[in-house]
């Protein structure tokens, strides 16, 4: 289990920066920065720009995503914002509106 979890029912309004893995089941509004993997689980909501390592989204994201690794939008995910990453997958059933920028 990841060492940092934002549980369902919790809302963080502000800036979150992390040197470790983050799992979001609740809500973050503001800004999210992580060096390691970030997982936004179904039911999780992030209304913020995200800077992360590998990013996996099954919940809602409103904001721009920048990843130093890959971004996986899973079925059920809803993302509004631009995605910049080296690799990206969008699963069947994921909703996505925004630009994709893949640095090659």
């Amino acid at each position, binding site marked *: 289990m990841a060492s940092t979890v934002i549980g369902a029912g919790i809302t963080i309004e*502000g800036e979150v920066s992390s040197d470790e893995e983050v799992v979001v089941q609740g809500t973050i509004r503001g800004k999210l920065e992580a060096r390691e993997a970030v997982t936004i689980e179904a039911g999780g909501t992030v209304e913020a720009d995200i800077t992360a390592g590998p990013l996996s989204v099954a919940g809602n994201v409103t904001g721009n995503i920048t990843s130093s690794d890959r971004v996986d939008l899973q079925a059920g995910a809803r993302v509004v914002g631009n995605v910049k990453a080296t690799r990206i997958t969008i699963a069947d059933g994921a909703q996505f509106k925004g630009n994709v920028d893949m640095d090659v």
Partner: protein
Amino acid sequence: MALLTVIGRGVRVRGRIQGEGELSIEGHVEGEIAVSGEVTVEAGGLVGAAVRGRVVTVRGAVRGDLTADEVIRLEDGARVVGDIRAPRIAIDKGALVRGLVQTAASGAPARAKGAERAAAAPAVQKAPAAKPAPRPAPAARPAAAPAPAPAARPVAAAPVVVPASRPAVASALAGAPARKPPPPVVPALKKGAKAALKKKAQ
């Protein structure tokens, strides 16, 4: 499990954390925390603002006020600079505190459990409310007593004053059923005594 939130060691949050569920802080939080469940600031954890929860346990550092609806526990290694308010407070050996500590019902006991406590709290508050009542009576006694003494002989109004003061004392005694002795008489300095002392000093 789903409602458990952990702010890990390498995490820094600048902003407000609120909601329901359990919250464990091992990293840094610079912002207010208001959670309906249990809040634990672990050893190494640091919170730079007010913390509010049902149960608040501190093993790390907090710079801000702590408020809990049930219990606050400051365990070994805790460092708290701020006021502490909860119905029950435990401060362990090895915990450092600087601030006001108050064991009283917290500001907003809105939940069912809090309501029980709120029901108990007024009962406690009623007792002290009854106690201050007799206090005016002793104050009335010396005030009333000297008055009738000189006035007793010449005027017939004196008997009127005495019965008026007596029922007040009687009712006060009835109100506080002989449990509490009257407050001790504090010897007062004579008028001008302080000035005299000052003069002596000079």
